[in-house]
């Protein structure tokens, strides 16, 4: 029930900010869409099964800020590789995922993929290593240092 309410409130806030037209018809359509989405998530059995949509930690914006900065740095690195004549040195590597929860593992895997220069090619749901494709040795080294894994751990422990 808690998930039900938090999801509805989040969707309502999203609808209101996206519409910007406050008329009875629009409100009615918005209410109907929210009811439909909540019903669908209920049927798909994802509501509250993995993550509470209303649960926001102050650590999330801090992590996003750090990740954004890493993305900018990685972009410059990959852009240089695109424009330079030196050959690239791609490779596959295994990376340890120390996160406890599925959401934590997905956050880590997605953060790796979001950062240019590294792509998660395999993300097993059990306790195995991730497989990552890295474009440049420097990108692989960054990942090996485990900085991002520690940040995701930190984000995860703040739940």
């Amino acid at each position, binding site marked *: 029930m808690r998930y039900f309410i938090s999801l509805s409130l989040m969707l309502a806030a999203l609808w209101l900010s*996206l519409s910007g037209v406050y008329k009875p018809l629009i409100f009615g359509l918005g209410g109907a869409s929210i009811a439909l989405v909540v019903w669908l998530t209920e049927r798909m059995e994802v509501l509250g099964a993995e993550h509470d949509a209303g649960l926001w930690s102050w650590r999330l914006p801090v992590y996003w800020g750090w990740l954004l900065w890493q993305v*900018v740095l990685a972009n410059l690195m*990959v852009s240089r590789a695109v424009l330079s004549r030196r050959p690239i040195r791609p490779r596959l590597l*295994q990376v340890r995922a120390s996160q406890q929860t599925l959401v934590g593992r997905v956050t880590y895997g997605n953060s790796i993929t979001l950062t*240019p220069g590294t*792509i998660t090619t395999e993300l097993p749901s059990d306790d195995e290593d991730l497989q990552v*494709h890295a474009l440049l040795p420097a990108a692989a080294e960054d990942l090996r240092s485990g900085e991002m894994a520690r940040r995701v751990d930190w984000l995860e422990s703040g739940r």
Partner: protein
Amino acid sequence: MTESVLNIASMLMLLAGGGFAMIGGIGLLRFPDVYTRLHAGSITDTLAPLLIVGGLALQSGWSLLTLKLLLILLFLLFTTPTASHATARAAMLAGIRPVTASGHDARDPNQEEPSSSNT
């Protein structure tokens, strides 16, 4: 005064965003295989929209429009890595071996040789 400063900052961000989108496109053409090309594509997916949306947000000021722009950015940054991962994983499952510098198997030399199937 502040208006013209904002306009210039916005213009520079839009230009830089377009430039990075082009670099991503060049990389897409230059790089050798599907995995490396995904890396180039992720420039167009991350830094280019960051700069373009940032530049547009400077134009729209503090309004509902800015919130919408930021939401576009948020959804983009959440969905593109998922799409990249799906593409890379599909390529792995299809048995496409990544190209490497040495021309040999791209696997990590520190790891023992896994079985030939990638599943």
